């Protein structure tokens, strides 16, 4: 399927998720380039941190097409919860980064709420004009993302 005739099964919820809405993404330590640091001394996020679900994982979750999970900041806030809530149940080698809805829309991505019983703040980010995110988009997302919580290095990454 080419980009020109692709129609995403998802809907970009521009009315309910405004441009300034914060989207939190849990980040595995494997997706961090620990050898490069930004001006604030934090390690560089790589595009790998913004991969869509594998096809098998998407199917298991009942998702009709590739996308990536995020947490909607305003829903977390409404529940009185910090962004670090998305790290609950995970060890300290996971971190959290944040993007805005405007950031992702500038890269032809859409965002749609997909609440679950356990995670009412859950949402998905998907490609509007292609079946899944390519590496150019993923790298651009990594550049726009900001750290909220930098994880610890795992033994393998030390």
């Amino acid at each position: 399927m080419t980009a020109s005739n692709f129609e995403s099964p998802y809907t970009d919820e521009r009315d309910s998720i405004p441009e300034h809405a914060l989207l939190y993404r849990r980040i595995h330590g494997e997706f961090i380039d620990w050898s490069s640091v930004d001006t604030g001394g934090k390690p560089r996020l790589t595009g790998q941190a913004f991969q869509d679900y594998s096809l098998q994982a998407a199917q298991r979750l009942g998702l009709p097409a590739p996308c990536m999970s995020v947490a909607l900041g305003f829903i977390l806030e409404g529940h009185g919860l910090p962004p670090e809530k998305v790290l609950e149940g995970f060890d300290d080698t996971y971190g959290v980064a944040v993007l805005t809805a405007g950031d992702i829309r500038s890269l032809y991505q859409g965002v749609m709420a997909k609440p679950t019983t356990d995670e009412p703040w859950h949402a998905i980010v998907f490609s509007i004009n292609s079946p899944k995110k390519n590496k150019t988009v993923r790298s651009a997302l990594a550049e726009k993302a900001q750290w909220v919580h930098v994880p610890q290095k795992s033994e393998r990454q030390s």
Partner: protein
Amino acid sequence: MTDVIDRFHPRSLSDKEWYYPRSAATLSGEQTLSAGAIIPASTNYYYGYSSTAYSLVNVSFFDPYENISKLREAAAALYALLQLPEGWDSYGAPRISGEAVSISWTLLRQLLWADFPLPRIVPTADGGVQLEWYGNNIDVQIEATSSHDISVFYRDVETGESWEGALGEEPRPLADIIRRAASSNG
């Protein structure tokens, strides 16, 4: 076409066996890895004996101790990826496939024997392996998911130039781009 030295019957190389390896690593199926796409044409190579059938050896830069050390490091990194459990990324990623590791090992052997710096070796959410170099504002990635799916991405942050596609179809020599990205890493 390429003669592979039988690992059970190692022997000396004759003069005729010295040649430039345009098609050095042939994969099963549709795709052929072109070592010429990665390794500069200005150097000489020969096939040497190795325990895994054959290796490309860059005699111009060959430093056995340094290269063996890098190969060991690469092998350890690949082995560690094979130990990752299903769902390792917290988003349901499958385990890293043996095929992706095997292909990555073939690529790494060629790259490291040819004195390219050791890349970051990272897992992908599709069960593949990605080799990455980043430096001088240049991002280079080679992703192996299966023998039919080996892709390249590079991007120069300063100029905005970027390219993404199948290995071997790069519009510019990949070796040059990797060396530029890696030159800041020492």
